């Protein structure tokens, strides 16, 4: 194992200490215990009204200790990494079990891990002046895009999370996880209307990403374009209709409609609308959906999950057939399935659970233009805000922030933001065309579950659903869709 491990160097931790803490955690029995050490360093900057109004930096560190006994989990954490405090937390977590002490396996094994984000200089340690330049350039570019852009706010945030996970089964994994994002939001005003637009991106990247690949100008122009477009948007139609989703961000459909419902904990407890459907048809045969934690530089990617297990690419739906779930250690053991490396947590204060990484639908064979041409009257939605799902009855929503009417095979007027609602287990059965243009989002997605937020990615190619309910306001006279 790596003697250079961050926590060994900076906190004087030794292998002997780790064994002692794990033994204390198993002092009342239990099947498994693990320790999650975390040291998180972060920076955030905001420019508003062309001024850098806020700059902040911070450090948080701590250790979370878990004891699993059957289906039971005991958890305690401390933000003081002294041996006395960690031992106290270990004994608190141990209260979940009540039996003779168990002995953790002797010695640790560190497996060779991937290096999906080999950043030499983490952005959090980079010169703050370069980050100031990013937000100021975003401000300038958004304002320059159109005189009707009246307000611009740009945020830059980065972090470096250093973790060490050790388990009573000999697990030993460490990782250093950079994460950076740049967001721009604009307000456009005409004589009669106001509208907003926003854009952003990032990933597990170094600062130079924003000076080369995706510049502040790129995001600023996109945010400004959306705001200007919305100034003249019409009312959205209401009711069931054909819907075409553009490539990229609309993949939030996949995340909500099927992703959450396929997290193993919900299926183990039979609380998901997808429970018991493995091997069954849950989507049209044009749909293949994967969760892929091993994409280089991506926001949702991880070398190891927060239980120290290697991440992987997992096929969830293959040609319409449900193939598998996303699991963590607990669900994998209780369900007798493989651990897919999806055990994630927000921080050392949180118990890990099955979560998505980068979840998307694979490209199909249709030409995106043919897809649009095939629609007589419908909606073409290309950008989305958030979404939500009730995994038990399967109902999910996602909210379009940029969408257009399709009339006689042509994309026509922009429409105001509207929520789309559907039913997870059958929404994808209505997919009739899948484009050859798979795209992932720009890297700003955050997923919430049980109060825990983790960074994720979504994606999809241009996709046509034959029927989905659009939550607009337009009556027949103005939109032509009301029945």
């Amino acid at each position, binding site marked *: 194992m790596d003697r250079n491990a961050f926590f060994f160097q*900076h906190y*004087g931790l030794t292998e002997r200490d780790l064994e002692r803490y794990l033994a204390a955690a198993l002092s009342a029995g239990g099947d498994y215990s693990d320790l999650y050490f975390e040291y998180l360093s972060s920076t*955030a900057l*905001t420019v508003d009204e062309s*001024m*850098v*109004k*806020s*700059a*902040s*930096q*911070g*450090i948080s*560190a*701590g250790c979370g200790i878990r004891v699993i006994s059957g*289906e*039971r*989990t005991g*958890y305690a*954490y401390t*933000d*003081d*990494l*002294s041996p006395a405090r960690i031992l106290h937390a270990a004994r608190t977590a141990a*209260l979940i079990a009540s039996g003779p002490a168990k002995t953790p396996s002797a010695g640790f094994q560190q497996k060779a891990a991937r290096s999906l984000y080999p950043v030499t200089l983490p952005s959090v340690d980079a010169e*703050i*002046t370069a980050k100031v330049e990013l937000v100021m350039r975003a401000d300038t570019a958004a304002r320059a895009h159109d005189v009707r852009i009246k*307000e611009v706010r740009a945020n830059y945030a980065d972090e470096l999370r250093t973790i060490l996970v050790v388990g009573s089964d000999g697990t030993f994994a460490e990782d250093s996880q950079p994460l950076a994002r740049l967001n721009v939001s604009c*307000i456009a*005003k005409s004589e009669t209307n*106001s509208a*907003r637009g926003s854009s952003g991106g990032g990933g597990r990247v170094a600062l130079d990403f924003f000076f080369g690949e995706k510049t502040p100008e790129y995001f600023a122009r996109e945010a400004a374009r959306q705001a200007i477009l*919305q100034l003249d948007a019409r009312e*959205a139609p*209401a*009711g*069931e209709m054909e819907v075409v989703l553009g490539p990229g961000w609309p993949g939030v459909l996949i995340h909500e409609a099927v992703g959450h419902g396929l997290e193993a904990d919900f299926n183990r*407890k*039979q*609380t998901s*609308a997808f429970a018991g459907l493995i091997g069954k048809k849950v989507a049209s045969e044009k749909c293949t959906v994967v969760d892929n934690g091993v994409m280089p530089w991506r926001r949702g990617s991880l070398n190891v999950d927060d239980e120290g297990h290697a991440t992987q690419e997992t096929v969830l739906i293959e040609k319409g057939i449900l193939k598998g779930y996303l699991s963590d250690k607990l669900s994998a053991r209780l369900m007798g399935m493989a651990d897919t490396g999806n055990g994630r947590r927000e921080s050392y204060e949180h*118990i890990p659970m099955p979560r998505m990484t980068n979840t998307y639908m694979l490209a199909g064979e249709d030409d995106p233009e043919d897809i649009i041409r095939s629609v007589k009257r419908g909606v073409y939605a290309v950008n989305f805000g958030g*979404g*939500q799902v*009730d995994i*038990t*009855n399967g*109902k999910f*929503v996602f*909210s379009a922030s940029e969408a257009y009417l399709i009339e006689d095979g042509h994309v026509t007027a922009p429409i*105001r*933001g*509207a*929520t789309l*609602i559907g039913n997870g287990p059958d929404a994808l059965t209505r997919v009739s065309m899948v484009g050859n243009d798979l795209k992932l989002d720009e890297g700003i997605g955050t997923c919430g579950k049980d109060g825990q937020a983790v960074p994720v990615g979504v994606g999809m190619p241009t996709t046509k659903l034959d029927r989905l*309910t659009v*939550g*607009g*306001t337009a009556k027949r006279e103005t939109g032509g869709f009301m*029945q």
Partner: protein
Amino acid sequence: MPETALEPQIETDLKELAQDIVGRAMSGGATAAECVIREGDEFSTLVRLGQVETLKEAGSRSIGVRVFYGQRAASTYSSDFSRAGLDRMLKSALELAKITSEDPFGGIPDPSQLGSLSGDLDLYSADVYSLPGEERISFARRAEKAALDSDPRIKNSEGGSFDAATGHKILANSHGFLGEYRRSYCSVAAVPIAQDENGAMQRDYWYSVARNLGRLESPEHVGKVAAQRALRRLGARKAKTAQVPIVFDPLVATSILEHIFEGVNGDSVYRGASFLAGKLGQKIAASHVTVIDDGTVVGGFGTSPFDGEGVPSRRTVVIENGVLSSYLLNTYTAKKLGLQTTGNASRGLAGTPGIGPGNYFLQPGPRTPQQLIGDVKEGLYVTEFLGMGVNLVTGDYSRGASGLWISGGELTYPVEEITVAGNLKDMFLNISEIANDLEFRGAVASPTIRIDGLTVGGE
């Protein structure tokens, strides 16, 4: 790096520490400084199908400092209270303040604005931790059991839970303000799953929350209500696309009321990012709509003796008889708008203060929710929203919903997979009636309300 983390933890007086950090920031060259310290303990347990599923217990603390160099500001925070950790936090703040912009409206509140409400606000009760471990678990178990026992169609559950937490907050600034308060909280909840003969499942929840154990509703009551809420959703169908009167139950009406809060939030107002910007003194809601924010209510969930900047909490009438009478502001947004702070600053560990509610509510009307429903010939009773489809700039509103169909003044069958859409500017004007069932289950509360003119999107 925290080289000294192995030092034994010294139980410092946190008030002295906050003052010391402010003093050291000032002697380091800051022209104003503010330090916040938060510490807290949490306990939670989840019982599922009668078995303990999780037990969690922990305490933590953190410290943050905000410094000004003239009109440049920056903030830093740390969970490391060692000498080295605090030195590093201060040094970073003082360096970071050099790269931010001169903002003529920046600064901490004037000394004359600082202060703290006197008297016992009844926010803290140590009894939330007084139960022995087994009894805490039993609260969770009883709530779930009541749900499971109430009907054979309740076949599964996401569990019953009991949570308790206490928090301690200290704030000090370079105008000599020093304040602290403690708050406690406990809650019991149940999340049962009902299943019909076709295997279709519906989940719902109910909970009780209080600042002390004595005020918590019985776990049995919570479990029973949760079960009824899940059961009434069984057999839900879609509704037809239509414009009909909609009655919103208190939980969903509260979320609508929150949009007014976001709309009068000074930060959105000065940027023109709110559909309510520039509307002060204008009629923005129906004439029976009065909305109040009151951070001074004894025992309230949104009560505190002072806000995130050390300004005493107060009562502000936001909408009076339909007319927008005040925005909700902190020091910065008040200065931007040429107004006075309303004592609504909320302070996280880092960044500039935001704006948060005190006890924020819609004043109740005279009639019962049943009477409101009874007036509706064909309409919708919404009990849950899904998603966040709200645009505060334009007021565009479009959310997923579920609930019960109203026919002939009666709740009939459950409906789901529908949307409710309109524009916030019209929605508040079209609140046709407010019921009498105001009850606080958090800092924001609304009675049942009826709104006309919204579009239901369905089949």
